[in-house]
């Protein structure tokens, strides 16, 4: 990543959002990867790895709850921050902007359903 054009560069391992903090923005990955981790007791569990074009942090915009997971850069990553106010103002004018977010969230629910299915299946064995 020789030149930074748009967004902000995060170093390998740098924390972008922290579990439990309040947030008023979401992020779109422009370049590189990030990992989503969550603390379960003393252990840290990796929930997902996201790549260029993916976004995260949208739940804090919609449900006004605290961040549900920590997100860190995996290698150098370039991210663009999306302001809650800018995003919601635009959605008020053009609801179809939320369509892509809904598609991604729907894909995540499918993945979660598959994961829950696998876990329950393993438990019953």
């Amino acid at each position: 990543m020789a030149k930074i054009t748009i967004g902000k560069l995060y170093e390998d391992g740098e924390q972008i959002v922290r579990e439990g903090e309040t947030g008023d923005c979401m992020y779109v990955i422009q370049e590189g990867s990030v990992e989503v981790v969550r603390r379960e007791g003393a252990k840290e569990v990796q929930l997902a790895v996201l790549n260029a074009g993916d976004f995260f942090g949208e739940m804090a915009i919609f449900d006004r709850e605290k961040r549900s997971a920590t997100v860190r850069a995996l290698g150098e990553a370039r991210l663009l921050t999306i302001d809650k106010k800018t995003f919601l103002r635009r959605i008020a004018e053009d609801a179809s902007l939320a369509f892509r977010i809904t598609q991604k969230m729907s894909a995540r629910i499918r993945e979660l359903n598959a994961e829950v299915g696998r876990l329950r299946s393993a438990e019953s064995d």
Partner: protein
Amino acid sequence: MARASSKRSIAAELSTPSVMRDSGLCLEDGSRVAVMGGGPAGSFFAYFLLDMARMVDLELQVDIYEPRDYTKIGPAGCNNCGGIVSESLVQHLATEGITLPDNVVQRGIDSYVMHTMDGATVHIDTPLGEKRIASVHRGAGPRDAEGSCWSSFDGFLQSLAIEKGANVVRKRISDVALQPVGVRVSTRDEDVQIYDLLAVAVGVNTGILKTLDKLDLQYEPPQTSKTYISELHLGRDRVVKYLGSSMHVFLLNLPRLEFSALIPKGDYVTLCLLGEDIDGTMVDAFLDAPQVKKCLPPDWKRPEGYCHCSPKINVRGAARPFADRMVFIGDCGVTRLYKDGIGAAYRTAKAAARTAIHEGIAADDFQHGYWPTCRSLDRDNRVGEFVFTMNRFLQKLKPARLGVTRMVRTEQEGNSSRPRMSMVMWDLFTGSAPYKDILFRTLRPAFLVNLFWNFAAAALGKRD
């Protein structure tokens, strides 16, 4: 071909349960759509039209008529514009899944430097310390940019439309006629095609709008003003050294000058002057101002034959930018006053595409689905006129000017918990927020108390 019939496609039936008017004009499987002009408005329209059509299982043929070749340097591939993708548009595009490539973004802008007529310089950083404004070349670059490593912004958007399935016709439309079965479009080589819908996405610097007069539409073209744009070659290192990643805005006491800025790009700096009747004398006066000279290398001289243009810009939106089977988007419709023209092209193009897919293509459909977006922009521009007038008025009064500068500087030095004036200035210069929003923020009691305190402090010569 779509027909003026009461029978609508299943996709259209499913997609428009609550807002359908009985115009009978709608896009159906196999409908043909022409887009006149392949700048941002035309490409965004084709992109979103095809994207939304796919969602409702509608097969459309979309032809973009654009004679310009965006791989060519100089005027042949340029759409005459300052080349700023605003902070809000960068965010909207990212949310849409459109990432601006590195070879299109010449420089990410993370701050503004305001130069006042008193010689003061105030640095205003982006609220998050992040580069969220993109400086681009609309074409492949100025006429002396041979061998440039950057690509055209308009060319990038056109490639997105092509990926969605649009076809680019490298011809100029010479004539348009309305017929009972559709819109007849002719090109200079006498090729004639019939389309169900024509999206007019041309700028205000073309004579083609005149040829539409004979159609007897209620459309009235926008009112315009002349601007001045030039590309000054400095070389990459000197651009970084003298301008950095900041857009430099000048508040000078030059009559008729509304806004002036130097925008850093890759190897070039774009000089952008907005106002009434910008002429050569004003350009010379601007470049001779000491505030401007200190932003350019001391040994720099304007080269012979440098790329410059005096395009017109839309300062008052078009009346009734739609008709049966026709819609006017981008600059030939309604845009934002002085700022964020590409953002307005995105908003109007998407609103028109949404209406065409989900509501219909009759004038009544556009009145219902498209016009509210135009009206919202137009009303905000009226507020913008007032905001710019107030700003100009304040700039003429020395105590007020010094007070505003002092307030911004105090905030930027971290001596204020809420950078109210900085945010007002940021949004005014970047076009990141509606003018109405900016005005309301300046009317809040906390803002006014702070402002008048700074007026008084500046008048008394108080430092902080």
